[in-house]
């Protein structure tokens, strides 16, 4: 996991949720009231837009920690 990708995920998260992730990469949906299934899709979309990549559809419905999201982003970005 490279730090810059996690930074992108954290920045996208703050933009979508309107607040920064309280626990950085360890933030999970239970930590943030705004992090619903809907806003999670917006988060995936925002990350895709920022990096100009397409993430796997499974990420649209699977909500883990932001670190796991960043890991999926790294895998998709090759």
């Amino acid at each position, binding site marked *: 996991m490279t730090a810059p990708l996690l930074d992108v995920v954290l920045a996208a998260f703050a*933009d979508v949720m309107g607040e920064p992730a309280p626990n950085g990469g360890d933030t999970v949906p239970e930590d943030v009231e705004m992090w619903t299934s*809907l806003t999670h*899709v*917006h988060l995936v*979309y925002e990350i895709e*837009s920022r990096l*100009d990549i*397409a993430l796997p559809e499974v990420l*649209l*419905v699977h909500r883990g920690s932001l670190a796991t999201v960043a890991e999926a982003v790294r895998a998709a970005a090759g």
Partner: protein
Amino acid sequence: MTEASTQPAAAQPAAALPWPELLGELRGEARPQLWRPAARRLRREPGARARHGRRQVALAVLATHTTDFLAEYLPVGALSVGIDLTVRQFPYGQVEAELLDPAGELRAQRPDYVLLAGTEQDLQLGAADPDAVVEAAVARWSGLWTRVREDLGARVVQCLFTVPADDVYGNVSAAVGSSDSAVVRRINAALLERGGDDVLFVDCDRLAADVGRRVWRDPRYWDALRQPVSLDALPLLARTVAGVLAADLGLTRRCLVVDLDNTLWGGVLGEDGLDGVQVGQGAVGEAHARFQEYLGGLRRRGVVLAVASKNDADLAHRALAEIPGMRLRPSDFAVVVADWRPKSEQLREIAGRLGLGLESLAFVDDNPAERSQVAGELPEVDVIALPAQPSQYVRALAGRPTLETGRPTADDRARAASYQALQKVEGLRVAADSLEGFLDSLQMRSLLRPLTPGGLDRAAQLLQKTNQFNLTTRRRSRDELAELLGHPDWRCLTLSLRDRFADHGTVGLVLLRLDGAAGEIDTLLLSCRVIGRTAERRLVAAAAAEARAVGCDRLVGRYVPTSRNSLVAGLYPELGFQPVDESAGGPAGARSYMYPLDLDGPSDSPHLTEEQA
């Protein structure tokens, strides 16, 4: 990522913009990076709804797919066109169940509009008999329209289907009648024909073609979430739905005010001269000519054009008449204001001369400073930013929700000429010795007719749009109006007017409710184009005649004040009506009046000659 707009990104984050500016940005841009924070902010600041919404509307969304994302965007999109929209979603895939349940929540909600949406997955594309597929789809959705109208009394907003991005017939799919693409197109055409004027349509296939079909539909969202429209394209869909509602509610702009230099033509008239500005020749000239042609199309559709320019007046008028290659000429503009005053003052003058409220104006100018000045002084005006390149000017207007239209009526098409004639009328007024002489010189002819099904569209349009000369501002829908036709307790009359300069079409409406010995004028309105022509006297006299004919002994009129109709506050006393004491209740400030029908009158207008139908 594909932009659904040509507008530059906002310099400030959306969350930081004042609401009027943010709503203006939403009208111009349809990208998620703007719409998502705007939607979030509206949820945090619900008070903005009341401040910027001119009409409260309830919308139910019934779909065969997920609509959560669309529902997020609809309220903020609607607010951008002046609608305080409450959206109620129902579980996807339960369209029939919700509509047919007599004890269901949908019936209890009594929405004003119902948005119906399906996807091509519903259509059984690829079946052996494409005719049967078309027939089944049309039967299903048109049957739902009937339920919406009859059981809910609501207006239908139907999303059309999108042609799939992938078709096994590829390049020849349009030529193969059984191809998925051909079948979807046939279904859309059949729905449009079946719906006629009773159904509002959102042409999703046109939107998909606009942004690109592969942008419109991201199969990942469908597979994972049953979400048929990509997040990229959703703001465009929400904005279009808002525009469709605005057009139906009469909230779209009636007059487009354009700048001249570097807007209507390339170059600056005062510096480049009549021979130096560019229209029709060269790349820049071609772009301005195309922009003018688009404006001409809007005019033919019924949008009134006007000019607000900082220029010498004589030179501006000469330029409009003489510059070679112009697609628009002076006769295309209802008002031309060219002087050195601030543009906001010019727009006020234009609104005043046309008898329109400022919220009926849109303004387009290449100069950001002028746009900013108008936006700051006149927040009611829809200020449209033009991109740097004239080749993209048309794009800035196309799809603007404030310029959305319903199916145009004959009156819409005649409107621009009618406004044009107003300027000639003003000239006559100035030259006349007296008001009576002026009115007679107009040689006005009126035609009073009972409202018929063929006149419903125009009458409903008047009910939705008329603000100033509207005694009660009761916004009955077309369907509600249709219910009054032929009802024994109601008389519905329209008034058409023409004068020596123009045929103004249907410009007046009176709805009379017969209640025992009283005939009550439920609605009395006139288009702002004919205010001051005494046509209201003909309508009230006609209402009195109708009431007398069924034995009523009094005619009751009511004035319900709004922020826009103070003009008619004294109308009934002026016509000889007497104030009636009212008990508490009813709208604040409402006043009732009565005219005893054993007296002659109320007096008709002596300035109108009645034509035979």
